[in-house]
């Protein structure tokens, strides 16, 4: 490579680096405006009803439609397909702000964006995109993602749901478990094995509309948190779908699932950040108002140290999440960073919500304050879309590759 060419490449790299780094320090104006818009929406429309949605396990249909109208339900979908045409950093900011108002609404939005629309956008044909994405951009319809089964969660390669070809149809049989949104969804991405002998290379991806003959839903799980979003089993009994409902090539299912989850992790990391931030907001406000030993408790070092630790945990996780987003936007590998972001953010959420209850004392334990709901909502973030243990394996795998000589 000529010296001039090399110099040019280094300059380009520096400039990209500078742009990306400065975005970590201060967001571009459009992103600031977007963040403020989502925050205003969450403050005015979500936070006031979040406790009721949680208590009554009510799906926020009206709010999902309003978010759809704003573009939040299909943030990275190009405008010609009905989406907002924005980047991953914008998506992360929106998910954080929405989840800060209501974590359940956040997960509904995140699953629709990353886990349902995501794979269709990346692996679908133009026809499939029009059919399976455009109606799901407005908030009128949401989708879900069916990978886990009663017999395997982390062990995604061991899918026992089968799909066999019969003439011009695929026939699916099996049960999927823990499917977010399924009771409110109008379509699902399903992973089933088409060639059991090929193990994880024999898994394929399918699109099934809901409701559909042969597809039924299990009972809604009674969860600890994110109760306004529905979670249940999807049962497939001789569920017949046309041949062109297969997404991507035969046998590419595992690869599609893993790549989809990489992006989904940025969405969940953002959701966890929103919950963590809401906990800090709650605790910080309380520290000013509550007095003990003759002064507001914010004057006590014990409380101050907690607040500082919470803030550091959130900000570090947030920067990791933004970095993963920026790498993805630059079309660079981001698997390690996404896993780090999800791990850091979910652990920050459980840590911050735990400490927030501690700061609030007795008030943190009752439903009058949102701290207990943040505590319950936070817990799932360390489990779904890859447990913290799986994230550690993913990160370690990447690191070991880097050190391989």
């Amino acid at each position: 490579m000529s010296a001039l060419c090399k110099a040019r490449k280094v300059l380009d790299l520096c400039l990209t680096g500078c742009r990306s780094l400065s975005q970590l320090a201060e967001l571009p104006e459009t992103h600031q405006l977007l963040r403020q818009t989502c925050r205003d929406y969450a403050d005015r429309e979500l936070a006031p009803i979040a406790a009721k949605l949680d208590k009554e396990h009510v799906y926020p249909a009206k709010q999902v439609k309003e978010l759809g109208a704003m573009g939040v339900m299909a943030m990275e979908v190009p405008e010609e397909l009905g989406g907002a045409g924005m980047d991953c950093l914008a998506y992360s900011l929106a998910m954080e702000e929405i989840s800060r108002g209501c974590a359940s609404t956040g997960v509904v939005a995140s699953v629709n964006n990353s886990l349902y629309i995501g794979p269709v956008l990346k692996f679908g044909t133009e026809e499939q995109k029009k059919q399976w994405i455009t109606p799901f951009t407005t908030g009128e319809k949401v989708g879900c993602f069916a990978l886990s089964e009663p017999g395997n969660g982390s062990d995604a390669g061991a899918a026992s749901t089968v799909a066999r070809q019969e003439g011009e149809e695929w026939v699916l049989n099996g049960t999927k478990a823990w499917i977010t949104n399924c009771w409110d969804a109008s379509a699902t991405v399903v992973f089933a094995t088409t060639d059991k002998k090929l193990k994880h290379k024999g898994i394929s991806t399918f699109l099934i509309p809901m409701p559909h003959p042969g597809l039924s839903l299990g009972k809604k799980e009674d969860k600890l948190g994110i109760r306004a979003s529905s979670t249940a089993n999807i049962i497939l009994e001789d569920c017949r779908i046309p041949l062109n409902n297969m997404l991507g090539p035969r046998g590419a299912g595992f690869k599609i699932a893993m790549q989809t989850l990489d992006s989904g992790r940025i969405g969940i990391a953002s959701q966890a950040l929103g919950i963590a931030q809401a906990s800090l907001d709650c605790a910080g406000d309380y520290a000013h108002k509550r007095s003990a030993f003759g002064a507001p408790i914010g004057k006590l070092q014990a409380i101050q140290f907690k607040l500082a630790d919470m803030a550091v945990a959130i900000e570090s996780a947030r920067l990791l999440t933004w970095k993963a987003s920026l790498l993805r936007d630059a079309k660079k590998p981001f698997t390690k960073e996404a896993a780090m972001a999800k791990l850091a953010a979910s652990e920050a959420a459980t840590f911050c919500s735990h400490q927030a209850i501690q700061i609030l004392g007795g008030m943190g334990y009752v439903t009058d304050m949102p701290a207990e709901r943040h505590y319950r909502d936070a817990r799932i973030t360390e489990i779904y879309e890859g447990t913290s243990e799986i994230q550690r394996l993913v990160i370690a795998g990447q690191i070991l590759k880097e050190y391989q000589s």
Partner: protein
Amino acid sequence: MSGRVLVGVKRVIDYAVKIRVKPDNSAVVTDGVKHSMNPFCEIAVEEAVKLKEKKLVKEVVAVSCGPQQSQETIRTALAMGADRGIHVEVSGKDYESLGPLQVSKIMAALAKKEEAQFIILGKQAIDDDCNQTGQMTAALLDWPQGTFASEVSLEGDKVMVVREIDGGLETIRINTPAVLTADLRLNTPRYATLPNIMKAKKKKIANVKPADLGVDLTSRLEVLRVEEPPQRQAGMKVETVEDLVAKLRDAGKV
């Protein structure tokens, strides 16, 4: 008729922020404090955008007078659907003493320059509560005014305005061009959609100086002192109505 609407948007301290007075009692603390668009200006923008969506007007121009940061307020208006913006740059001491008289002179000059058919403003700003700019602008232009509007409908070259007044609701019919000021119940401002936020980036904001419009910014008012409202005193409980009357009489209230 040009079909052009000028909408004034003011950058004020956010309504949810707790206001603090500077230690020297000269003004309110604004450094590092969250600012946003005046809520009544949001309603004004919404009304203008609605008129454009109904194809009753052709172009919505958002105007703001203030320092660099006023551009953020204009961008918010663009994200809500305004077509372009005009930033009238006023900063430093001029900005500290900027009031309804100067702003209305600026709006009047712009209205003539842009051949506006309507000027829509918020009825008042939540920082100074003056409730004067709309009225002064109309007077300077010798245009009719429909203030405290809770309902606006265009009828050919006239406008019907329902006004919220102390006695109830008053309906007037005025000629165009006209100045309208928005009251709380005129509409519910929309949340900017994300595609519009992206589009707002591409819309133009022109930069203008008050001198270019021939406006003199000298204030006729001088702020002498700014104070917090008196701290709420502890109350007291009384046992009987007689006690209450006696205490009120002692305090000179009856």
